[in-house]
């Protein structure tokens, strides 16, 4: 159901989708995890689609420096509160390093502010519409333009004294 709705809503903005069945327990009953690769233009439409099934729970927002560009991963869960019905939906998309901007989810999900503040300071992604732009984990006097999760010149390798 989720997959059809997403296909219809996103059209060509949906790159590929994979449904993973994960068996659990001695009776090997499975639950579903849906992995969806989208284009960044379709991100808000994709999240709005999830709102059809009730308020989606944002589990993780993470990102990664892929070298050429940045990749963002949003993990949602829908159909919770119902025994054995919950489905995990993972959206991932790439954004260019020259313009690392994505729309903020905070107007829809106020709790996403924490996640976005973390990704903003760690990876240097700008969230359009995010009101609270203070640091979350890093100290308030953290130098501008330094991002711990980046693997390029904005990394903090020179600040790290001893990590193995």
């Amino acid at each position: 159901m989720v997959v059809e709705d997403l296909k219809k809503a996103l059209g060509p903005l949906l790159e590929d989708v994979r449904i993973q069945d994960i068996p659990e327990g001695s009776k090997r009953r499975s639950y579903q995890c849906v992995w969806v690769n989208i284009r960044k233009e379709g991100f808000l439409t994709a999240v709005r689609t999830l709102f059809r099934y009730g308020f989606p729970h944002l589990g993780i927002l993470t990102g990664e420096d892929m070298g050429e560009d940045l990749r963002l991963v949003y993990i949602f869960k829908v159909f919770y509160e119902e025994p054995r019905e919950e489905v995990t939906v993972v959206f991932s998309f790439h954004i260019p390093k020259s313009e690392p901007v994505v729309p903020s989810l905070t107007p829809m999900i106020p709790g996403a502010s924490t996640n976005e503040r973390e990704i903003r300071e760690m990876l240097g992604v700008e969230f359009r519409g995010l009101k609270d732009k203070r640091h979350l984990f890093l100290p308030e006097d953290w130098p501008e333009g330094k991002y711990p999760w980046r693997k390029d010149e904005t990394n903090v390798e020179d600040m790290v004294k001893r990590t193995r």
Partner: protein
Amino acid sequence: MTTTYTYSLPIGPIHPALKEPIRVVAEVEGERVVRADVKRGFAHRGIEFMGMKRNAIQTLYLSERICGICSISHPYAFVKAVENAIGMEAPPRAQYIRTIIAELERIHSHILWLGVIAHEMGFDPLLYWTWKGREMVMDLLEYLTGNRVNYAMYMIGGVRRDLNEKKIRAIKENMNYYRQFNQEMKDVFMSDPTYKARTRRVSLLTRKDALELCAVGPTARAAGLRMDIRQDQPYDAYADMDVRAVVPQDITGEVMGDAYDVTLVRLYEIDQSIEIIERCLEDLPPGPILAEPNLIKLLMTIKRSEGEGVGRHEAPRGEVMHYVRFDGTRDGPVAWKVKAPSYNNINIWGRVLVGAEIADIPIAVGYIDPCMCCNDRVAEVRRGGRELPYEEVRRKCREKTMRIKREVMG
């Protein structure tokens, strides 16, 4: 004409109640909180960064060091994520043992919280009594795994230690003790009029706020959300049984979403854990405990694997979620993201503290059972304005309890 000005009331980074660093700054006007703000990150150690430089088994041990109280929650989510990414499945016996250890941990963590909240209110004998009861399960965990905390029990594709007849007997005896002890705890917490007066309508969280602020675990359940991964998306031995989320509407018939409801949820979850453990021992399947006993081979499998996985576990405080990605070049994760339940639950402080009395702040802060297994860079925060020391706040909290006690007891 009177001028009103607000006091800035800092709590933390050194919090006398929780022994973990976080800073809450509450703007107070008279006795009322008008605005609250949270600064976290005093314990940020960049564990995810370190994990991405180690192999998967070393990262598993590292993940165990994220949290000092619920030290099995992070390894649990991590092994589930790795198994999901490389397509491995733990043998049934290992899945049952994992569930037993996770539930034992829920028992000790919930009792810990009940003690802490009693201490915050000024019921110190109750703290000593609950924590004395907690020692039994700590001793049992030490007997089963070798350690009181950091059990090093889980491995990718199974568990490291088996349960023999003697250990199973020890767990059964322990469960009989806790059935009795939990009944006594329920009697004490639920029948005491002062406890009720001190927690009813304190730090109210509505269902809508819980959804919007992504609350998880007992915090969300106290607001009436039937949200529990053991029910919604059961894994391991939970998949063989029908666990149902414990919510206040099933216990008392109404949802208030206050500190009293949270107490009820935690007390009844201890009963649920005892049931789950006994059910697991009854149905414990025979067989191996590791899918791949050769760890070198396991690391090679990981090194050849490409893919990503999500692992989740319903920890005592709520949903723990890990994301890993392997790229087929190294035997550890190239991307690792950890999300602890307090990461979400701290969001609610901004809302529940507004309108609260100063004397209720310790309860509202303790409500979610915060665990700052987040992060550390030492930061010195200097602020202007007037500041009230936390000891003052706690004194107010205790005075209010004593006042109510006198009123209730007559």
